[in-house]
């Protein structure tokens, strides 16, 4: 299982992995939005929390299809499914690897992008906190979506459609926390809800995901 985590991380780091893909996309959003919306800093400050969270979410969404697709195509998933480790474990490890490759770097770089988007300084800490709490949920939910679509040729599109509604609560609470933080209001409620989502999802979804993979391989 650790071997799997290490392999996935190594694959991500080697050329071909897509480590940094999420990160690059996040950066992309933060650079493109001002270019599109225009340079007024008041407007930017106002939309910064939402845009940053939407960016983080899209960055996660984009890399989801690689979670299983590559292993499926080259036959590794077949071999993993017949290997002596529980598929639930495989799925959980895959979600963890996805978070380490996408969610974590994204969280760490977010203050820099907040600068580009003129987020009020009071919001920086809350942005970090909400992303750290929320991105694991994005990875776990995303892994579930990826599991539902393993091996489907229309994977990418379907995956986005399936996962999008599941992402909505995380997005709303996450962005709300940052917005309140930036305006100096209390952020306890949205942050708590966010933590609740993450905990619940991490405890339960891997079972559903493993079942989905099993069905898809059949």
């Amino acid at each position: 299982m650790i071997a799997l985590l290490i392999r996935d991380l190594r694959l991500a780091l080697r050329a071909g992995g897509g480590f940094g893909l999420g990160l690059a996309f996040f950066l992309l959003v933060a650079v493109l939005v001002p270019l599109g919306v225009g340079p007024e800093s008041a407007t930017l400050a106002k939309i910064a929390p939402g845009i940053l969270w939407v960016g983080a979410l899209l960055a996660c969404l984009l890399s989801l299809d690689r979670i299983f697709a590559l292993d499926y195509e080259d036959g590794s998933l077949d071999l993993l499914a017949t290997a002596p480790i529980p598929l639930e474990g495989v799925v959980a490890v895959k979600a963890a690897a996805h978070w380490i490759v996408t969610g974590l770097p994204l969280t760490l770089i977010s203050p820099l992008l907040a600068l580009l988007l003129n987020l009020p300084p009071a919001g920086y800490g809350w942005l970090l906190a909400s992303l750290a709490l929320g991105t694991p949920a994005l990875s776990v939910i995303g892994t579930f979506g990826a599991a539902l679509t393993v091996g489907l040729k229309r994977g990418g599109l379907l995956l986005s459609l399936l996962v999008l509604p599941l992402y909505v609560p995380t997005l709303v609470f996450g962005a709300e926390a940052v917005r309140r933080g930036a305006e100096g209001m209390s952020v306890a409620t949205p942050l708590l809800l966010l933590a609740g989502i993450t905990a619940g999802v991490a405890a339960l979804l891997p079972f559903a995901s493993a079942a989905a993979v099993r069905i898809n391989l059949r």
Partner: protein
Amino acid sequence: MDLTVTDLACARGGVTVLSRVSFRLGAGRALILRGPNGIGKTTLLRTVAGLQPPVAGMVSMSPEAVAYAAHADGLKATLTVAENLSFWAAIYGTTDTAAAMARMNLAALADRQAQNLSAGQKRRLGLARLLVTGRPLWVLDEPTVSLDAASVALFGAAVRDHLAAGGAALMATHIDLGLDEAEVLDLSPFRAEAPVAQAEDDPFAGVTA
């Protein structure tokens, strides 16, 4: 530790391709499946490996005892030969990758990325994976594709050692594997007929306009 396949029927793309396949494969024995293209060899092997459920009949061995090698090798292009192999060794809880590499004549290529191997070298790596699974039943789909004569001999020796150690091997192929002691099963007689009998299992049988 015997593999007994009883009255097995298996399907691909919703079409039953083989039916009433029965055979027994004891420890220390090898069985070669033959039959024309499209008869269903791959489908049968996937069923035995537990990757798809049988339409009817049963397979005595649990998939936990099976090491499966498909048309695709399951190699990661950007990992080196040694990394690819030790990953699978770790998954199967074994450690002796050096021996497996030596057996398949891969030692000189250990630090080469899999994407820089020739077709035959890739295949050899795919076969070396079997040696680190430590599983008794090998289920192999055209294992010697792209291999030269020397590598086919290496493969033959590996299979023989596996059998001698009490393992078993079930293989599909069109070409000579250099395993004279193996039994051969021709699948042509088991091609599924237009299945009247299948109507029994069909949950929608009897529905009419």
